[in-house]
């Protein structure tokens, strides 16, 4: 699925943060590529640098060393063909659910058209928030807020979708539904997806490839291609191969503790 120019390329990336009490090496020697229209999941222990990886891709921060390229161009600032689901919901507290979802249009172009509103309503339904369009974020549950963030990232139909634990606050069923919804969107409007999750099953179920990161300083210790047939659905979960992948990855992630 990858083409000549990869969608994302990390070349010997290192990231060091200056903190109140010294410095902290978050990433060390990351080399990886994500092909165009590839769906890559990232697994790794808490604090290993997954969010940092994602922020580097988005151009929100710049690496201490190495280069990040997107579609062959070095990233020096955020790009507008990238949609991000942040780890925290990050909603505008004064805007309704609907306004939060169409916010990218308002923010980029200054205006929200009737079709934008329509698109917003469709997305509200897709993330299961019918009837909550006029509510303020403070009036939503944690999981509902997270879904608003997802809808907002999908709103601009970006080429690259970066998702930082987007389903972490959702129950198993909603999570599964949202996952399949995401796959449907991805298949209908192909895009490159980088998907951080703590659920091994979810990673295998959704992704073309799973990257596993080590403890801090984070580097990539496994790069596993998931050869499960597409389209995937509920029955994929019963697939023997899927269980093997999950078992293998679980073993890998548990091993580090020993």
């Amino acid at each position, binding site marked *: 699925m990858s083409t000549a120019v990869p969608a994302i390329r990390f070349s010997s990336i290192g990231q060091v943060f200056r903190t109140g009490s010294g410095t902290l090496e978050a990433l060390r020697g990351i080399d990886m590529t994500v092909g165009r229209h590839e769906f890559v999941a990232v697994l790794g222990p808490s604090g290993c640098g997954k969010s940092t990886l994602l922020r580097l891709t988005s151009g*929100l921060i710049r690496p201490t060393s190495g280069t990040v390229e997107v579609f062959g161009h070095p990233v020096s600032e955020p790009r507008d063909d990238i949609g991000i689901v942040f780890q925290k919901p*990050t909603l505008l507290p004064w805007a309704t659910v609907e306004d939060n979802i169409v916010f990218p249009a308002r*923010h*980029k172009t200054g205006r929200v058209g009737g079709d934008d509103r329509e698109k917003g309503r469709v997305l509200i339904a897709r993330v299961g928030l019918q009837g909550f369009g006029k509510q303020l974020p403070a009036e939503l549950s944690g999981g509902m807020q997270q879904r608003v963030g997802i809808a907002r990232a999908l709103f601009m139909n970006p080429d690259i979708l970066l998702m930082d634990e987007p389903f972490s606050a959702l129950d198993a069923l909603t999570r599964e539904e949202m996952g399949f919804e995401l796959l449907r969107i991805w298949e209908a409007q192909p895009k490159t997806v980088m998907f951080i999750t703590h659920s091994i099953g979810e990673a295998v179920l959704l992704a073309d490839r799973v990257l596993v990161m080590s403890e801090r300083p984070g580097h990539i210790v496994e790069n596993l291609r998931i050869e499960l047939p597409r389209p995937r659905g509920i029955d994929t979960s019963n697939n023997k191969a899927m269980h093997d992948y999950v078992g293998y990855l679980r073993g890998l992630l548990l091993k580090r503790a020993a």
Partner: protein
Amino acid sequence: MTMSDTSEASSLSVRPERSETRRQVMARAIRAPGVLPAATFVLILLVWEASCRVFAIPSFILPAPTRVLGGFGAVDTARWLEHVWATLRVAMTGYFLSIAISLPLSIMLSRSEILSRAIYPILVVIQATPVVAIAPVIIVALGSGDLPRVVITCLITFFPLVVSTTTGLMATPPELIELSRSLRAPVFREITQIRLPYAVPYLFSALKISITLAIIGAVVAEFVAAEKGLGYYIQFSTSMFQVQQAWAGLIVLVLLSLILFQIVTAIQRFWFPWSLPGDRT
């Protein structure tokens, strides 16, 4: 004090008591805009009247409100309106000019620390210069129309606006700024759609401070150069030992400030209700 109660539907309360309801009616009446401020104002007048009588304060120091009433008759209504209008016109022009200057300035200052460190001292200098001391320069430079008065009002009001708005613009949570940056929106939209809404509480705190300063500014300006206006009237009456007239002017002036302050408060309540915290009884 129970901050979450406000968001619960008390209409479904389990034990709706009679006394509760009556108290609620009272509470609603009290909450109606303008009721409490008006009540307070009347209370001030009552206390004032009482102290004048009880302590037998000579009326040339502090005339009782009932005596001040006489002062209102000193000039006719048309003339009063002229004075009020003169002050109001200058205060409002200066206030809006000041807002028009402060907003872009604050935005500039919030964007560059170097700039802000370099420009703040200028602002402090302007703010710290007593208007009276530079009155000759202002008048010679600006003539003697409304202009010098508007400029003086501006000079007096802009500082709180700039300081508070700049603080507010920079207090926006970094994750919302990241959101904006990730959308690659033009900077002005980051400001208008994220930073400014976020700074609204700061902005209104400054607008409230500045509205009363605007009146003060207009009054000070009238001390410096004017033929009309409440400040002029008060000072003039004082200098001629027309104590009652001076206090009558003062009451009108204070009422004007109160009303303007209430208007600013009402604007925030009406157009930016989300910027008001709901966690008070």
